[in-house]
Structures are given as C-alpha cells and as structure tokens.
C-alpha cells in the first residue's frame, strides 16, 4: 500500500512504522471523542510510572467544525493518528522524521520545521510543550511532551505525536480537497474516494449538530453522565485501590462530547461555557487520580 496513493495506505504505513518500533497498535476507542488524546490509551496510560508505547487511529468528532461537507478542509469527523511513548525516548524527533520519510516525504526536497506550540486541553486538565510540525508551511502533526494530564504531573513525561491524516494525505496525493482523496488506492471504476465514504455523513451530521440535536435531551444527558461518573468513582473506591476507573472515564468522555454538541447548537453562553469545561475537567481529574490507584496506574 503506497502511502502517497491511498488514504488507507498512509494509515497502514504509519501503523507498521510504529509497530516496528515497539508500539502496541490499538484500535480506535469505541466512543465519541474530540481527539486521540482522549483515548484511555493516552489519557490514562500517560499517568503513573509504567512504561507504555502505543499507536492507533482515532476518529475525532468536532461537531462545531462541520460545514455540511462544503468546505474542502473542515470536517466534523476526521482521523488522527496518535503515538504515545512513555517515557519519551531521547531520539523522538529523529523517530518522527523517520516516520515522515516512511510515508514518502523527501527531506532533501521539503522544508520540515518545528514551530512552537504549547498544547493545552482544558477539558482534560492536560498541557505540554512542543511544536506544530510543518512541512512546506503546512501543519502536519502536533508534537508534545506531556507535562500534566488530568491535573497530575507526568512522571515520567510522555511524548505524544498526533498526525492530521487527511491533511497529510492531501499533501502526499497532491489534491486540494479532502473529499478528493483516493481512499483505497485503486483507479477507474474501483477507485473509492473520501467523498464516497464520508460526504453524506458530513452532511447528515452537520444537520444534526447544528440544527436538530435535541438540546433538552443533551442537557439531561450531560447531567446524567456527570452524575454517573461521580457515582462510579465513589463506588469503585476500595481503600488504597480503585476498581472502576475506566467505566467512570467513559462517562467523563460522554459528558465531554455532549458538551461539544451543546456548544455546536449555540445554546451555551460564553460564561456558561467556562463552567461546563470546568465540570468536565473535574471529572477527568478525579478519573486520573483514581487511575493512579490501579495496576495500570502503577499501584502495587
């Protein structure tokens, strides 16, 4: 599968590249999340002392970014390729550049740059320092050294790489619009484009996100997810240990996505917005603290 000829070729090449460097290749998390970072494989696993290396594709839902499929570069659903290495190896930048070479970017022809970008995810209580990685002026990845996740200092620090797959694929395939991407690498009648796979979904979800999502139901869903997250965190307490972090975290993710939908519907005012973000952050922080009391979080 040539990474410069098909979208899936790009994806498979990155998976193979990182699999060969010791990463566990996970599958997408089966919930609606806004970014690959929210996957428990990053969010929870980056906490605690245990080494961890994983790579996976994560569909990212950003209800507000939908444009009914009309804007060539804005989608409410797209893919991120996520790599998490804990602790970050000393040659992470070199590894990243090798991965670019693996997907067909020739460093003698293209201008790769690391441009300051301090990453922060307020709903996850996470921040780190790093860069946007540019290829000929286009941002193709985010490169972050996590300093804090769920409000907890990372010890050790993880290195996180997030590749914007559609944008990268546009560049590699030399097309102007995401919808024009060749998905399967075939030509003629057998060719399947990104449009064939996702245009209808973009239109339908844009309608839902902006016009038809039942806001009363969403408000109830937010409150229910928040309550259940707290309840599970409480019921999972077992002295020094915690027994139900991941189900609780699912509810935190659910609250987060519900908030994003409400935000897209424009029913949350600027002042309320901040308080919703804080409420989700509190859940994420509580989940992170509980994770440290599990085997995965390094508790003995």
């Amino acid at each position, binding site marked *: 599968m040539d990474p410069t000829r098909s979208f899936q070729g790009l994806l498979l090449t990155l998976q193979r590249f990182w699999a060969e460097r010791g990463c566990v290749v996970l599958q997408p998390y089966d919930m609606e999340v806004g970014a690959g970072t929210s996957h428990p494989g990053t969010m929870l696993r980056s906490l605690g002392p245990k080494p961890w290396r994983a790579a996976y594709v994560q569909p990212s839902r950003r209800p507000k970014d939908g444009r009914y499929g009309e804007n060539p570069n804005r989608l409410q659903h797209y893919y991120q390729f996520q790599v998490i290495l804990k602790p970050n190896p000393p040659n992470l930048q070199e590894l990243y550049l090798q991965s670019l070479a693996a997907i067909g970017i020739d460093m003698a022809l293209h201008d790769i740059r690391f441009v300051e970008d301090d990453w922060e995810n307020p709903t996850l209580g996470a921040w780190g320092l790093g860069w946007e990685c540019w290829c000929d002026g286009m941002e193709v990845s985010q490169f972050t050294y996590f300093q804090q996740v769920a409000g907890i200092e990372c010890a050790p*620090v993880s290195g996180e790489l997030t590749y914007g797959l559609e944008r990268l694929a546009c560049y590699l395939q030399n097309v102007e619009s995401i919808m024009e991407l060749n998905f399967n690498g075939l030509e003629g009648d057998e060719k399947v484009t990104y449009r064939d796979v996702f245009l209808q979904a973009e239109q339908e979800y844009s309608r839902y996100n902006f016009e038809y999502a039942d806001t009363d139901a969403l408000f109830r869903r937010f409150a229910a997810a928040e309550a259940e997250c707290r309840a599970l965190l409480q019921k999972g307490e077992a002295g020094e240990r915690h027994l139900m972090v991941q189900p609780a975290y699912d509810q935190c993710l659910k609250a987060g996505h519900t908030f994003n939908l409400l935000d897209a519907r424009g029913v949350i005012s600027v002042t309320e917005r901040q308080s919703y973000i804080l409420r989700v952050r509190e859940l994420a922080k509580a989940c992170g603290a509980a994770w440290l009391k599990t085997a995965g979080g390094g508790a003995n």
Partner: protein
Amino acid sequence: MPDLLLELFSEEIPARMQRKAAEDLKKLVTDALVERGLVYEGARAFATPRRLALHIAGLPVRGRDVREERKGPRVGAPDAAVQGFLKAAGLSSIDQATIVSDPKKGDSYVAIIEKPGQETAAAIAEIVPAVIRSFPWPKSMRWGKASAAGASLRWVRPLHSILCTFGAAETEDPEVVPFEVDGIVSGNVTHGHRFHEPGPITVKRLEDYVASLEKAKVVLDADRRKEIILTDARNLAFAQGLDFVEDEGLLEEVAGLVEWPVVLMGSFEERFLDIPGEAIRATIRANQKCFVLRDPATGNIANRFILVSNLAASDGGVAITAGNGRVVRARLSDAAYFWQTDRGALPDLDTFKDSAEKLGLDLAKPLDQRMAKLDKLGVVFHAKLGTQGERVQRIAALARELAPIVGADPEKAERAARLAKADLPTEMVGEFPELQGLMGRKYAELQGEDASVAAAVEEHYKPLGPSDRVPNDPVSVAVALADKLDTLVGFWAIDEKPTGSKDPYALRRAALGICRICDENNLNRLQLEQILTPLFDKWPNVDAPIAAFDLIDFILERLKVMLRDRGIAHDVVDAVARQGIRREAMMPGMANVRVISIIVRTADALGRFLDTEDGKNLLAGYKRAANILKVEEKKDGEGAFAEAPDLHLIAEAGLIEEKALAVALAQATPKAQASVAAEDYEGAMAALAEIRPAVDAFFDNRPHRLLRRGQRWKPSPGGRGQGEG
C-alpha cells in the same frame, strides 16, 4: 588571555524566546565570573532555533592570588602561644614565619599566607551547571526517563549536548571544561543543520566554531540571518517590480525559525485580491509566517508572497514553494469565505428581533445583524460590567451626549457607536482579532453607512498607544471618547483599578487616549467632572463625586506622563491642574482647569514662561511673598491675609514700592483675567510678567514690616532671615 566558548544544544527553542535567552545566558555567566573576581574583555551571545551560544573573550587563566598577613605572638613568647599561632596560620615550623620589628613593641612573628586564585576553568565548571539548572525560561519542561524523578533538569525543550571549551586563543588548543548536568557531559562537539549536516563537528574556539557551523549550513548570528532574509527578500521583490512590505516583528520571528535562511517567492490567484489587503496580510502573516508584497504603482497588495525556508532544497525550492502556495491558497479560501459570509444575511434573523429593537438596529443590513447577534448571544464584556450589548447601549448614549461638545452630529455619533462593536461576531474578526474595527469599517462602508460613521467604527479604538494616530473626525472623537470613558467609569465603579504593573484592561492606555484626543483636537468644552459624575451616579453603591474625583486624578496622572515626555515638568502640570481644582471654589472662572486641552495649553504656557527670565523672577517673588505670608499667618491666624489688599490703607500709609506694586497688580489682574477668559494663556503670562519690576522693587527695598489692615504699621519680628523665600 584565554576565551570561553559555550554552546547549549537542544531541540527547537521557540523563536520569541531566543534573543532574550541568549542575553540571559551572557548576563548570568558573566555576572557569576565577575563575582569571583574574574573580569573579562568582552562577551557575546548567540541563538539559533537549536542552540544558545556564548563567547567570553579575555578571561584570566585563574583568579588573582590572595595574600594575607596574620599577626602572631612576640618573639620569645611561651611555647603554647607559638604552637597556637602555627596551627591557626597553617605553618609547620616557626621558621616559616617572618619576624617584624616594632620600635615600641619589639619583635613579633607574622605569618604570610598566600592563597592562589581559583583556576578559571574550575570556576566555569561550577558556574555553568548552576546557570543551566536555574535558567529563567518563561516556560520550561521535563522530559525522558529522568522526568520520573521529582527534581529532574528543566529546559525550554529537551537539552541534548553542552559544548564548553576554554583556552588561549592562538597559542594552544583550548581544553574542554569538564562538568556534568543531569547526565549530559560537557564536550567539544556540536552538530550542524538538522537536514544538511547532522553529523558531529569537533570545535576548538569561536573562530572555527562559527566557520564550521557556516559550512554545516548554520548561521549562528540572528542579526545576520535577518540581514540575509531582508536583502534576499528585497532583491526577489525588486526583480518582480514589487515592494517588499517590511515587518520587523515577523522578520525577528522568522529568523528564529531557521538556521539556514533560504528566501523564496510564491504566488496565489489574482481572484483572492478581492479580499481586503489587511486581511490577506493577516492571513499570510499569522498562519504562514510569510511576508506580503505590494505593487508600487497602486500601493495594493500583490498576489505574491515571500517565504523563508530552512533548506537549500535539491530542486531549488520548487516543491517548497508549491507546498507553501497550496497552504496560502487554502488559507485565503477561508478568508474569502469569511469575507463573503460576513456580507451576507445571518440565518435565524427572527431570533434577533428583540435585540435589534433594543439597540435601534436595521436587520436588513448585515452589520446591524451582527450587532444584534452579539447582543442576543449575551457575550459578556466583564462579569460585573454586563454584556457587550449593554455596553454598546451605554456607549451610544454617551457618544450622543458628547457629540455637541466635540462638534459632531449626535445622530451619526450614536449610529457609529451602535455599529462600533458589530464586527466582533464576524467570521473575519473571529479568525483575526487584530482586524477588529478595520473590518467593521469595511462592512459599514459596504452597507452604505455615512463616511464619518464608517470611519468611526474603525477609529474609535484609537489611539492604541502613545505613538498611534489620534482620530480627528468629530464622530470618531465622540465614539472614541465614549468607549474609553465607559470603560474607565465601569472599572472604577467596580473598583478594579490598575495596580503597579498590573493593568489587564489597559486602563492607563484608555486614560492616555482620552488625554491625547482632547489635546490634539483642542476639545476646550469637555469638562471631565460634568461628564463623569452623572455616569457614576448610575452605579449603585458608588459615591459619584468621589469616584469622579479619583478617576480625574488618574487621568491627570496620565496627562502628566504625556506632558513629561514633551518636556513639561510634573509640578507645572500639578500647579495647573490640581492647584487649579482647589482654587476653583474661590475663582469661579477657573472651572476650565478640568478641561484637558486647557490644562495642556496652560501648562505649556506656564512651562515656557517659567523658563524665561521674567518667569524665574516672578516665581522667586511669589515664593518670597508666599513664605512671608505663611510666617505672618502663624501669628495672625489662617486666612488673615486672604482678602484683597486695602488700597486706601496703602494710599494713606504705604511706601512708594507698595503703592507701585498695588498699581501694577491693579493693572495686571484684569489683563490676565481677560486673557484667561479668552483662553490666551501666553497673554496671561505676559500680563503677569509685567508686574515683575514692581515685585522686585517691593522686595529689594522692603522695610522689615508688613502693613496690616486696621493698623498703621509695625516692625516685622520675623526679620529678614525668616521671612525671605
């Protein structure tokens, strides 16, 4: 004299931090050396995206020896005393001590202890690790395995290697200064350009370091990188018959993003030139860090741009230019979409009806719709100061009220104020906040607003600083003042005034803006107190007169700063403004002292007058009189001399100088008052200058007494020494 060469090689340092970091490195290391008595001839620091470097020339090999004398016992003192002395001085035998003779006290022992100075290299090995560990990065991070432990090294991004050599320039090879910082051992190896020459380079001293780096496609000096970019960019532009639009901030940033600048020119479709030039520039600058070009014939932005890459690409930059062009086009497509969307109707117009009615907006017009949306969304300006919609209503009312005072049409001023913030919810301003105001003006023009109204939408934010242009169209003036006054009154009412260096809402800038607008437009009818007190009255729990007085004080403080920059002393401003306010009660005609433009011109005139010979003498005469009166008041009680002089008494009993002074005052006073009334402050000063001979004569020939009301005269017991000023 040996030199020090230090390089800290890391992953990419944010461009905006590089210059300061290099300077900090220089200061911290040289300060620490000097503190140990190790003075140097010169020091220079450098920064590239991946390294900080420091060269210190002309250091001593080691610090100065310290010679210390320690006094011992007399010759022939008991053995216990001698042994004690030997131990304290670190001598093994008394033969090592010197004997000194004193004619009175006789012979005694002295130990001369010589401590050799510390080796400079050893000092460096202590100083550099300490500087690295406590380096003042604005933001720093931990990384890698070591970050599992609590106190691991922090740096701006992972630090990979340290080069540190020390040695004499020509005669010998410098040596590595050995030390270790969190597992990084100092050495004499660096690396070149990430893609061109990533291999190790062994370094001796600055000369070969700079040359090797240059060969390995790294230009060490940021200013040289800037020069290269500027020269190449100008040449490329010139070759195309275009002007390079210079941008120092962007140039500094771009020079911090490359080690080997290669300047290229890209292009985009002419159809994008429909987008306002400022928006094209903002897009290309903010997102792509590229420079725009201008057609010298029209002054308009051209469909070309300058990009600076970090690679001498094997195809001469064709792929890089093409890639950047794609991104620029995608960005401009976004901008074109914003530009188009903002001029169209919003969906759900019905839901904005209430807001439109409340704010007197016409929902048939796009910009009015945006203002209605801003109000409807309830976007908060500040938690305690309400929404943007409420704020716009206040500003509109105030602009209308100010209009006649500043000579503006009240209708236009109100309309402009209602549209002033309407561009905030536009797509374009959402994407490029720095275009606020400017886009509002463009959209206002497109929907056929009056030219003054459209201009005011942009200009009401001005002036943004001491050197920004001050609006002078009366409509702009009214809205600009209303905006700033509303902000100041609001924050004063909720008691969030600037403190020290903290001024998060830029209130000092707003106050200075008011001063500059009033001054440069000569707004001689804008009486601050009359405007401010009623505004404060609308706030519950605020003592309006006190709040207004406090705010005026704050504004006058800015005025003083403004006038100081013009060379007018702060006490002159105080004399005009503060003293004036105190005396207002006594002199009703002085209400003008709260009019900024009048304060400025009075202070100007007073400042100039005091610099003249007349002024200096008048001031000296005034001080003398004031001091004498103060002394006399102590005896006669306060206010004993407040009333006008008794001219009859002077005529009857006064000396010739007193009579002359009375006449001079009687003539000068109406002249000065008439001049003040006519706002001719130069004239008022000239009138006062005329009394100088009379004042001088009075004091020079003054008998030692004061003529008092109801008495003939009595000698002044204070006498000369006490009464003189």
